[in-house]
């Protein structure tokens, strides 16, 4: 697997979430994604980026375009140093939230991705990796 493009952004404000959406969109277009696939990964990115602000006070994202033979994909790796998630299964449940939102972000982002993983322990931050392939 070849990493054809690799960008990192920090996420601190709601303007940064817009920046993340724009960079993910640009990489998805460059990877040849159709409009629906672009929209799905950009929406997933928006949800997870906002979570980093709401629950961890900010974080970082790495946005990579992947080439695997003839397949093209975009992989996003979000990491933060927030309080972590005690029960990932519960956090992925639709409607469950410890904040003020709808509780759709994590589970919704998972449904919009082809690959999705959450790695977190209480006190040591959270890493969310997701990818979508064309």
């Amino acid at each position: 697997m070849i990493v054809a493009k690799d960008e990192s952004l920090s996420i601190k404000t709601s303007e940064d979430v817009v920046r993340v959406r724009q960079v993910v969109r640009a990489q998805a277009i460059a990877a040849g994604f159709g409009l629906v696939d672009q929209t799905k990964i950009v929406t997933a990115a928006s949800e997870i980026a906002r979570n980093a602000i709401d629950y961890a006070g900010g974080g970082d994202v790495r946005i990579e375009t992947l080439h695997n033979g003839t397949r093209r994909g975009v992989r996003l790796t979000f990491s933060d140093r927030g309080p972590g998630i005690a029960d990932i299964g519960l956090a992925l449940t639709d409607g469950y939230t410890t904040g003020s939102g709808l509780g759709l972000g994590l589970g919704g982002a998972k449904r919009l991705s082809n690959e999705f993983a959450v790695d977190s322990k209480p006190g040591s931050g959270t890493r969310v990796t997701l990818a979508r392939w064309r």
Partner: protein
Amino acid sequence: MDQIPILKIGDCLLVSIQVDMHDRLAMALQDDLTNKIVSTRARGVMIDISALEIVDSFIGRMLNNIAAMSRVLDAVTVVVGMQPAVAITLVELGLALTGVKTALNVDKGLALIRRLIDGEEDSRDRREG
């Protein structure tokens, strides 16, 4: 751009979202619109999202909130122009926008608002008459 313009046409308010909104801008729009419904005594609100490339759970919640607040303030809200890719993504995200009325375009949206307002006035007349 840190404010989304709200246009008044007759007894309706028209908002056309032309920028990729950050969350504070979405919150500001929600507040502005609620105030404007009261100050203009609008009966209908139309929100054109044809230029929006995504609707995530935050923007979806904003649309739901605007619809709910306008209902409480005796106005109807119609969201128009959602792109097909946005609709597909929204449903997969898990957001049904059950409280929000939608129309395909501005023309159909205005007609729907008219029908909804007239329908409400009819049933009001019947109750009072």
